[in-house]
């Protein structure tokens, strides 16, 4: 794994995204139109980035340009617009390939998002591999999107779902993990970063151990791509999936990276146009990768938008970016802890971007409403991770999550809003 700066390094010095000695935070914020508005009479502080990030001008312009100038269906017209649309979408695939460092562009499949990617893999494994009594191993901190598809598949194939337990720190139990790998384990599916806790799981290590047992690994990168370096070849994961909308791109588009050997082995997920080479009523020959898994007219604008998002994002010095976010997270922790009644949920050594907490005497939902009235957007709820809530014995948490455009000022506003809310609540 690439170096995650430790939180202690940053103390509470104000964080400004600095690149080549220039302060970039203002410049970055300037590129996000949604950030410049008032909510309930207060300037917006957006700290719900783990749900979805805001979109920079570069992405808005790419979407706008496609619809204004190049709008056509892809891979099927001989006319100029279709050629341009096809070129733009395939260039986006190249940008994404580069971004995650996939070996081949054919291994980068456009899907609707993380959820669809996991369902596609679950379908592929169920159809090509799973036998009754086989096992799928997930972890105790998965998003529902990495639980429910496996439950469905296990029911259908009479396989067994096993779960790597979690420690009170919000880290996976790495001593228990290898003991759960058996001769019947057919896949390990684990999140890179937990959306409810912010824990960065040691996926590289876990992949190496799983591979020692000949077990392929799916990494749910939904919360990771915007906050940690991702190199699928270095990780050596068999599948890596993420959603465009959590990394400054549009909704409705996501990526399934899969090693070619696996994707070749899987049957198609959906049938239709684009995914075929030749169709007659007796027989259909499927198209090559990646098109075999891209039935129907794809989300063309969104794919182009995602390519633009990742290109835009790649322009930042990555290390500077991680430091910026680590500083904000450190400040978030330190300042929240100082507020009476606050309990941080999830205290892993390696965390990124996400801080979940509860406050004694006030339900997260009420706190969310009060903060909203101070212009502060946070998430209150179970974060689609009910088993995590059960583990920590809380019905819900408040979750503040940072992104590239957040500032030390935003954290201060959150703390101030929290103090005001608690005063009101007395």
């Amino acid at each position, binding site marked *: 794994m690439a170096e995650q700066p430790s939180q202690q390094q940053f103390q509470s010095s104000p964080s400004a995204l600095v690149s080549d000695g220039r302060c970039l935070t203002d410049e970055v914020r300037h590129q996000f139109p949604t950030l410049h508005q008032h909510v*309930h*009479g207060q300037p917006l502080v957006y700290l719900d980035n783990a749900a979805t990030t805001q979109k920079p001008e570069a992405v808005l312009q790419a979407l706008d340009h496609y619809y204004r100038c190049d709008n056509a269906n892809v891979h099927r017209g001989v006319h100029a617009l279709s050629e341009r649309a096809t070129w733009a979408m395939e260039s986006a695939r190249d940008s994404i390939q580069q971004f995650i460092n996939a070996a081949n562009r054919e291994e980068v499949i456009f899907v609707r998002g993380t959820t669809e990617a996991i369902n596609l893999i679950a379908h592929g494994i169920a159809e090509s591999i799973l036998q009754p009594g086989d096992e799928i191993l997930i972890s105790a901190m998965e998003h529902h999107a990495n639980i429910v598809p496996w439950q469905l598949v296990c029911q259908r194939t009479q396989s067994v779902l096993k779960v790597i337990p979690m420690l009170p720190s919000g880290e996976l139990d790495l001593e228990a993990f290898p003991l759960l790998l058996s001769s019947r384990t057919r896949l390990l599916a684990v999140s890179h970063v937990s959306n409810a806790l912010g824990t960065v799981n040691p996926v590289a290590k876990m992949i190496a151990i799983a591979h020692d047992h000949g077990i392929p690994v799916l990494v749910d990168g939904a919360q990771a791509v915007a906050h940690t370096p991702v190199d699928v070849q270095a990780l050596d994961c068999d599948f890596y999936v993420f959603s465009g909308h959590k990394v400054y791109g549009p909704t409705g588009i996501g990526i399934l990276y899969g090693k070619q050997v696996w994707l070749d082995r899987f049957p198609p997920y959906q049938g239709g146009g684009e995914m075929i080479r030749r169709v007659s009523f007796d027989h259909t020959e499927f198209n090559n990768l990646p098109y075999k898994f891209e039935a129907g007219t794809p989300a063309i604008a969104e794919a182009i938008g995602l390519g633009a998002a990742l290109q835009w994002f790649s322009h930042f010095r990555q290390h500077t970016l991680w430091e910026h976010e680590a500083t904000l997270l450190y400040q978030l922790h330190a300042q929240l802890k100082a507020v009476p009644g606050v309990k941080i949920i999830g205290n892993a050594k390696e965390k990124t971007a996400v801080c979940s907490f509860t406050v004694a005497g*006030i*339900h*997260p*939902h*009420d706190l969310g*409403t*009060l903060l909203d*009235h101070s212009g502060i957007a946070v998430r*209150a*709820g*179970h974060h689609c991770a*009910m088993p995590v*809530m059960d583990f920590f014995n809380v*019905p*819900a948490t408040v979750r503040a999550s940072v992104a590239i455009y957040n500032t030390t000022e935003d954290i201060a506003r959150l703390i101030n809003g929290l103090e*005001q809310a608690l005063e*009101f*609540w007395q």
Partner: protein
Amino acid sequence: MNPELKQLYQELIMDHGRQPRNFRVLSPCTHKQQADNPLCGDQLTLYLDVKNGVVQDIAFQGHGCAISMASSSMMTQEVKGKSVDNALALFKKFHQLIMSGESAEDMGRLAVLGGVKAFPMRVKCATLAWHALEHALSANDGQAVTTE
């Protein structure tokens, strides 16, 4: 804090939110109804003891925000002793109150929950227990109700 918030979190609501009345298991009972709000994870179980067409006793347990706790608590107080028909009629009026903010004349203290109308995201918190009541009294099929 702004006036809408003050309207939402009135003293009566805060009081019931902190110390919900009839917050216990009712046993024996004639109706037991579970209700979930999957969006925020609120869960409650409503217990009713109905005899001769009258709600003799009513209680609930569960967890949720101040709005859902207060609404449940006040509902149990209002419904206790009412006939099933009157309880169902009150459900309709309450629903009307939350959706329109307009209180029918005989709503009594329940009118304080009218402030929820200004908070569309919180409507389901206020109506969860009421949906459980309506379902228990009209369907009574043992199925959990959900706000979705």
